[in-house]
């Protein structure tokens, strides 16, 4: 195994260094464009999951810890399972913004716009917005919101974004995995090919998890003529609870 792994690592490193990203006049890589998660699996469930009603099977997107499971503290996984049984609680179903990192891999496109000291991320779903200053300014004090307060910096050709001020109410996916109060996220964005933006997020949230964990989701560039459409989800929506239960047969619920 060792030599094979080393070989793979060597190939990966050389592939990374071989790709030179397109650059803006300021020298930073140009992430501009419309992107969408290359796999929708993460939107359904960041962990490996079998197919179930409304959810296709998919692999884990958790690259750390090894094994691909969320390192929940005792009792916390039960809360996630309970969420899964009550998806009407999903904040996104109530048309709130996704929170970080979920906001980066919804099953809808998002647009990245770079302008001077800002990286702006617009999500089609929930008409979500993240404005990420990269000018070194301090975080807001006493701030709490769905998408948090983001500060970016360039580490070579990688955009590193620190996120604080998350409201602790966000879910990680449709399956009810969640983050809690005090979560901090460090994201890394890097072009690994012309049309692939690799996204990694490390979540540190000691009130819910026994250790930090990292998800990795590649985003794929959409064609140049794709435009974001307006997403007419009115924040405060509460009708999801009137839909049939998750596991109900198609004709078994009241509509």
């Amino acid at each position: 195994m060792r030599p094979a792994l080393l070989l793979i690592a060597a190939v990966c490193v050389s592939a990374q260094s071989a790709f030179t990203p397109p650059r803006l006049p300021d020298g930073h890589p140009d992430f501009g464009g419309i992107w969408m998660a290359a796999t929708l699996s993460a939107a359904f469930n960041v962990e490996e999951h079998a197919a179930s009603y409304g959810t296709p099977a998919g692999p884990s997107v958790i690259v750390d810890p090894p094994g691909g499971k969320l390192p929940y503290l005792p009792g916390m996984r039960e809360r996630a399972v309970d969420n899964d049984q009550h998806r009407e609680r999903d904040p996104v179903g109530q048309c709130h913004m996704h929170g970080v990192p979920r906001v980066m891999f919804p099953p809808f496109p998002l647009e990245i716009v770079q302008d001077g000291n800002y990286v702006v991320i617009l999500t089609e779903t929930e008409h979500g917005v993240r404005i990420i200053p990269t000018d070194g300014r301090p975080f807001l004090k006493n701030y709490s919101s769905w998408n948090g307060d983001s500060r970016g910096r360039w580490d070579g050709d990688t955009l590193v974004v620190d996120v604080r001020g998350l409201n602790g109410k966000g879910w990680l996916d449709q399956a009810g995995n969640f983050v809690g109060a005090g979560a901090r996220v460090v994201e890394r964005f890097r072009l690994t090919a012309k049309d692939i933006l690799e996204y990694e997020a490390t979540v540190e949230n000691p009130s819910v998890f026994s250790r930090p964990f990292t998800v990795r989701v590649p985003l794929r560039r959409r064609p140049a003529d794709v435009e974001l459409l307006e997403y007419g989800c009115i924040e405060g929506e509460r009708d999801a609870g009137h839909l049939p239960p998750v596991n109900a047969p198609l004709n078994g619920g009241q509509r």
Partner: protein
Amino acid sequence: MIRPALALLLVTVPAWAQAPSAAKSAKDAQDLRGIWQAKGNAYRNLEAERGVIVDPASGKIPYRAEARSLADRNFQARTTADPLLVCFQPGVPRATLLPEPFQIFQHQDRVVIVYQHVHAYRVIFTDGRPHYDDGIEFYMGDSRGRWEGNTLVVDATNFKPENWLDAAGHFHSNKLHVVERYTRTAPEVMRYEATMEDPEVFQRPWTIRVQLALHSEPNFQLIEHECDRDAQGVYRHPPQFLK
């Protein structure tokens, strides 16, 4: 590649063609970046705020007769019927007039406006691509822009008919066509004009003009305006809104 294209543009746009250096200064003037906010209280009632409606000279919205009575009914019901109260995206030009900041970004072929209010945004292409077809409707409309000198002219169509133009119940149909003109008249001042045309509701086009001020406070930023419903079903906006 950019330089020859600009030079070509200079030939076809006489206003810019004064001298080679005019190209650079004209391009520099096409800079609306920053966090802006409307001065005054036009958002409350377009007709009641002196000087907001600059055409017609009466300062009144030129409603068709039957539309004026509907506006009056809206006014009577405004404390409950205003679509903004229930978290709708505000539409155009109302988004510009609200007592909340918005931020303008520019990148190559597009201008992006992010409104703090319910995190509405518009991506305004300036590369000449056409509007969506009729029948596709959006709360924020479909916006296509072009530069006339240092004025950004935005043509907005494809609106949903539910939105209001202000908190007083002034309204439009899905035939609304707005032409907005954004002109930076000083480093921290922008003139905003919008002409509304809607043959189902108005007898003729009419125009508003509002000054926008740049937020130049250090590290000023938009914050999240979450509009939500509480357990009693009452919609809640952050305290800085609806004052």
